[in-house]
């Protein structure tokens, strides 16, 4: 369950936290942390490509509908299952829906669900994971027990049941909620492990000995210092969330008509792949571009933030 991308070892964490050993003097010429990360990020061409592709996809999802006069929910009954043409850029489905309009709408939905649930997962996982580690003692024992229990719940099935009982229009919100509700457990465990080394750092001890309240310590000291891990996790979490949304929708358990998402269109397309392959092709390409670009950005971020990576340049 633990994401392999999160293999930031505790040793690395420690070094990352107690970074910059050789800093000297006040008059030192300092590169800001953000500027530094940006520079290291930009050294990776693949990461830059990821940003460009993702930006194009987001723009496409936001403003794509003005490039066609067809709405995703108004079928053109005069051209059913027609191949790509000037009128329908990506062709139409069996029912006459414009694939271009569908992909625009579906991409927007998938992105929305992916980003929202990834953010929510990170937030919940960060709070629970750090709190469980910070309080030690019986809180940690009970907390870990609950987390372990949650891991064995058949989440896919439960999400399907939740979404099934919802209406077509609010379905995507329920889906987001469902993905979040069962997605944070694994991350929380990873973050707990990282916090185990963080809680032994002197500034956490210092805050405790000063009498700072526990939740203030978690909010002010622990979570911000997991920052780099949280950022990477959120970005890569988008891929995971989009994938599970697509999978659910593909099986007919996620987004339902009249709403649409990439998974729903893919499901439509797989039945007619012999006769009108364009219905499958367009959403598939969009999905691949989306996950690939996010993955590239995630890799770039990890290398930019990780002090041990090869983004250091040459003398």
């Amino acid at each position, binding site marked *: 369950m633990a994401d392999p991308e999160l293999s930031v070892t505790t040793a690395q964490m420690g070094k990352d936290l107690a970074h910059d050993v050789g800093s000297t003097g006040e008059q030192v010429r300092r590169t800001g942390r953000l500027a530094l990360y940006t520079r290291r990020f930009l050294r990776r061409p693949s990461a830059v490509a990821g940003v460009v592709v993702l930006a194009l996809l987001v723009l496409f999802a936001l403003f794509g509908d003005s490039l066609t006069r067809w709405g995703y929910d108004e079928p053109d009954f005069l051209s059913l299952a027609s191949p790509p043409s000037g009128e329908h850029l990506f062709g139409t489905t069996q029912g006459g829906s414009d694939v271009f309009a569908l992909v625009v709408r579906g991409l927007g939905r998938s992105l929305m669900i992916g980003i929202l649930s990834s953010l929510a997962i990170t937030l919940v996982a960060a709070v629970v994971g750090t709190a469980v580690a910070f309080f030690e003692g019986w809180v940690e024992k009970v907390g870990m027990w609950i987390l372990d229990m949650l891991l064995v719940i058949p989440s896919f099935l439960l999400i399907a049941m939740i979404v099934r009982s919802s209406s077509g229009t609010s379905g995507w919100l329920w889906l987001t909620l469902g993905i979040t509700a069962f997605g944070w457990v694994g991350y929380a465990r990873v973050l707990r492990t990282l916090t185990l080394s963080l809680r032994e750092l002197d500034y956490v001890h210092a805050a405790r000995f000063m*009498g700072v309240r526990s939740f203030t310590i978690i909010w002010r000291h622990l979570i911000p210092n997991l920052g780099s891990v949280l950022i990477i996790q959120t970005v890569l979490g988008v891929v995971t969330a989009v994938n599970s949304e697509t999978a659910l929708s593909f099986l007919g358990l996620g987004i339902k008509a009249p709403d649409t998402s990439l998974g729903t269109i893919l499901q439509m397309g797989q039945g007619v792949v012999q006769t009108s392959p364009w219905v499958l092709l367009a959403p598939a390409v969009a999905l691949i571009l989306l996950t690939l670009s996010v993955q590239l950005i995630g890799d770039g971020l990890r290398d930019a933030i990780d002090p041990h990576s090869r983004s250091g340049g040459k003398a």
Partner: protein
Amino acid sequence: MTDQILTTTGDHPDGTPPEGLVLPAGAGRLTPATEPVLSVRDLHVSFASEAGTVRAVRGVSFDLLPARTLGIVGESGSGKSVTSLSIMGLLDQNARVEGSIRLKGTELLGKTELEMSKHRGNDMAMVFQDPLSALTPVFSIGDQLAEALDLHQDLTRKQVRDRSVELLDLVGIPNPAERLKSFPHQFSGGMRQRVMIAIAIANDPDVIIADEPTTALDVTIQAQVLEVLKKAQRETGAAVVMITHDLGVVAGVADDVLVMYAGRPVEQAPVDELFARPAMPYTMGLLGAVPRPDRGENRRLVPIQGNPPSLVDLPVGCPFADRCPLVEDRCRTAEPPLAPVPGRVDQRAACVRVDEIVAEGLTFEDVYPVGEAAESGLDGVPREEREVVLEVTDLKKHFPLTKGGFLRRRAGTVKAVDGVTFDVRAGETLALVGESGSGKTTTLLEIMRLQAPQGGTVAVLGKNLAELARPERAALRRELQIVFQDPQSSMDPRLPVYDILAEPLKVHGWSRARTNERISELMRLVGLNPDHVDRFPTQFSGGQRQRIAIARALAVGPRLVVLDEPVSALDVSIQAGVINLLEDLQAQLGVAFLFVAHDLSVIRHISSRTAVMYLGQVVEQGDTEAVFTAPRHPYTQALLSAVPLPDPQLERQRRRVVLQGDLPSPAQEIVGCRFASRCPVRAALPADRRTLCDTVQPGLATGAVPGTDHGAACHYPLTSSAAEDVRVPSRA
């Protein structure tokens, strides 16, 4: 230029090997000498970094003669370790190395990895700082020794085994034949460092590079390991490069010393010469800034002002100019070369004013202005009349030792703290001394938790912690604050200094306006510019960060500050400033310090009372002067005799009580005196008197010396005349 190696020598009519370094052709009488085994010329090393190119080493040259020891001294970032790594060819890919390194006439720079590995471990070997990570945990000691031998020699299994046993025996590991099968985790830190030395000398190297070999070890173990290193050198006839920041260690082992600053050698001399008559202001400052364990008089320490320059953009001229009290305009125009000091044999210094310094015989006292200590309001008040700030009685903290994965069962008890008693009174400093594992830090954390202890009582300002209600406990936090060892990790790197200092104030409900005022007051109090509160901790140097940590501890006006090794992470020249600050703050504010340290010289300087801990117990307690000049417990005596002195002549004269063995595991059940297994006094006793040591645990008996509360937990305490014999010698 280096084809013809010549040496300058002093007077050696009998033709003994010359004292001192071999220098490239220079002033003095020139005689052909023994060929140097290692000769480094104009070594330059630079690294790529985000801020620009770091010029870590800039022009190091030296020659190393067989069987001699060169000490390279310098503060962190001075380039001493980089020098050693570039000799071994162990630098990172992003480093650029220029110059020349010749081992027995063979140029090492430019060799491939494969060619280098024929030299490494064979004719040159390295002993690393951290013995914990230098050995592979999954192979036995025997395997690792065999690996070192097999790589460079063609031996049969039996030969390898015999040689391994011989090597382990040489470095003083008991039962070497059986220990070959042991794994690194079954050895203590000191023992592992011995194994490292055994591996280093396995193939009879010509050069041994020791990079801070004893920094991670306790003083008594350090003394043992340095002995082993000397013995290893005698056996192999190897030349040793000893890299260290500890001037005491250099004084004890080196024949010649190279002082480095900002990547450059700034002074080079035979050890006696360097310590007696340093010619470069930096060396003088370094020697003057160290507190001396052998001097009782409360001389104020003199810090070197400022911080070392950044190696990324070095200033034009002498890199030390900004911190040098003798600075002149010409210092800032060009960097002075390392030139022979006129009138001195074999001494070279990089300073434009060296002529004046030598001619006028300037010493540390002339060069560095000595500051005035602040007056304390409590000076005249005798100790008995002062308020008791902290009273710890019979404190116990035991940890259960569990075994098994699923069903945990108790396998034993670690008695981390077992009956510690002491008190701290207003305005005084009590030092807790002891080696690692003695329970100092556990004691501190038990006090800082402000919870009822497992055993015994802790009372802060007369309030027993066991009887406190929650609000009272919260209020008591204001009276008790802590400063940690490492200023890197004791402050949240993501908060600006203002927020760091505001944190304790916020907890105790200070208003925004008062907080603001208090923070600028605090910054001034610890000698920092109040305008810098918007900066992040990483923008300050180590010493400044420790000042911020002290300011944070003092923010709410505590009566007692607990200091956990507050200066041990700092360089000597910076350390002096922080010690002075602590002394001044105590005098001004009347705050009491509970000072935990392993560095006895710092303790002698700063504390008024000392408690020596061994295996979770206080074995000796009393006035610092009394404990240092007339130790009554044999452990205290051994501890004092193990401290290296920054004075080569005293180092040679003194007699050491070198303790046998290591600290027993705190999980071990010990009946009787806990020190008995290592005690030199017990070892000298007749068998019938030993029984007492082995069966009865001695209590801390005070009142043996009339009129004082100096006490030792020993059945046969040392009399002051016996203590006289081996105590830290001092120059009359």
